[in-house]
């Protein structure tokens, strides 16, 4: 459904490409997480899917990006990014339109721009408000919200336009733990309720492992790892490329040689996986002793 075909992209005035020879097929309704160190090309990849590259950022693009059979370079931006592809940015504040005074109007902003008739708009907005638990905030100014609340409003504002693909560029990077939790719960709601294809850049491994079907890792513009979340997140290659494995993985690794982690079990990426594995190892020891 989304296909990148040998894509190499260089930003204008940059000496080196930000992405080298990327080929990737993303199937419909899947949830793809993207990891990689700063500067590895993750945001560039997202901008390509949304069509911001090449329409907003010019630069040199080789290869093709095809979404639902259409080449993004040949399709005008207004036909790509919303209605097709919804985009949620890192900075909650800059994502607010700035033109609307209440949360309700803010969410409707995209629909207004698309010329949706008022009655339909109203219904869609109310549905989304309820879906994301924002009904209490309807009359508040978007600028008076906490970071987590702002990001939820941004997510709702994009989701209400019913895109087929949703791209999230580190939506919780600038949030505190409570905001992060709020946003991920909202994403969970989204994933449970609608068959969108999701592409998310995120480094919080526990959440990735909870939602993603597939995980890719980028390093210096190249695609270096691709597989199931647990496999990629516990791969030793992650350390090499500067992403690093989670502490649960480190804990299991450090005790593995002493038999602290079952040999036949994949290393853990999350708390639950870790608890299960360590308990099993301990039971085994108790049987021995």
């Amino acid at each position, binding site marked *: 459904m989304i296909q990148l075909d040998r894509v190499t992209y260089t930003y204008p005035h940059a000496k080196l490409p930000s992405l080298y020879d990327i080929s990737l097929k993303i199937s419909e309704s899947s949830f793809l997480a993207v990891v990689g160190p700063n500067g590895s090309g993750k945001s560039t990849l997202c901008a390509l899917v949304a069509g911001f590259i090449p329409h907003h950022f010019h630069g040199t693009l080789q290869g093709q990006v095809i979404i639902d059979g259409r080449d993004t370079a040949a399709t005008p931006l207004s036909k790509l990014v919303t209605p097709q592809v919804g985009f949620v940015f890192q900075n909650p504040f800059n994502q607010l339109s700035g033109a609307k005074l209440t949360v309700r109007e803010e969410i409707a902003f995209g629909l207004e721009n698309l010329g949706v008739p008022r009655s339909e708009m109203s219904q869609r907005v109310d549905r989304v408000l309820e879906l994301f638990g924002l009904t209490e905030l309807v009359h508040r100014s978007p600028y008076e919200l906490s970071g987590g609340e702002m990001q939820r409003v941004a997510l709702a504002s994009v989701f209400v336009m019913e895109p087929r693909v949703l791209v999230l560029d580190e939506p919780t990077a600038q949030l505190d733990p409570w905001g992060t939790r709020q946003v991920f719960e909202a994403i969970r709601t989204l994933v449970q309720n609608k068959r969108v294809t999701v592409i998310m850049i995120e480094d919080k491994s526990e959440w990735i492992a909870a939602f993603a079907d597939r995980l890719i890792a980028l390093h210096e513009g190249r695609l270096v790892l691709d597989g199931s979340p647990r496999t990629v997140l516990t791969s030793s290659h992650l350390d090499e490329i500067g*992403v690093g494995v989670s502490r649960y993985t480190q804990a299991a690794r450090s005790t593995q040689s002493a038999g602290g982690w079952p040999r036949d079990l994949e290393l853990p990426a999350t708390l639950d996986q870790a608890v299960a594995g360590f308990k099993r190892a301990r039971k085994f020891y108790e049987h021995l002793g």
Partner: protein
Amino acid sequence: MNISVNDLHFSYPNGVEVLGGLSVEIGSGERLAIIGQNGAGKSTLVKHFNGLLKPARGAVNIGDRDTKNHSVAQLARCVGFLFQNPDEQIFKKRVFEEVAFGPDNLELSPEEIEKRVSTALAQVGLSDMRERHPYDLLPAQRKFVALASVLAMDTPILVLDEPTIGQDRYGLTRLGTLIDDLAQQGKTIIAISHDMDFCAEHFERFLVMKQGRIVMDGAKHQVFSHNELLAKAYIESPQMTRLALALELPGPVTTVNEFADVYAKTLRGC
């Protein structure tokens, strides 16, 4: 150089009291993490250390200087402050010049400034970026530029406001190593952070704040063994602490190394 906070009260102009009578002593060379939910008053507290905010009641002393009687620029010689957003201070065309801004304000000799800038850039790993325009760097690197500009002032006390936000593994490792090195040099390091794991790995003393008050003040293991109190202050424990709790290991465990030790002991005991 000690920091002495005595019955500190502070309210915003609209009358809302933000700090309700805090008292704390921070000794020279300590590594202190201040944690707590948003609105607890963490930022407000540390802004009193370099005089950006003055007490409404009570006093804050840096060494023997009462902050009420000194300007921010004067206190900047003792307390270096890293703000959250480097883009709200960078204005020079070259990284070198940006890092030199602080020492320049201290009216040091050009040779001394050059020495300090080079040292600071080496400490943050940006020596080969000195001639670049700061905005050619990634946002996370700009944060290190801002940090370098504070380090170049060579203050005995450093305050870091959310230094980990936006950093990848490289950045966190570099930051952690830097904090350990600076502490070894005898500097006092105070950080506000939500990253419990990072704090557990690099800080020894924790100040837990809630609604303008200090609810816990103690060594790392002491603080992370009071799970109920932490939960009430809306703080999520470090990952290893949670893991150890779930496995009912004798605690408190806060880092991977501690976990490995404790876990190995329980296995041997089986």
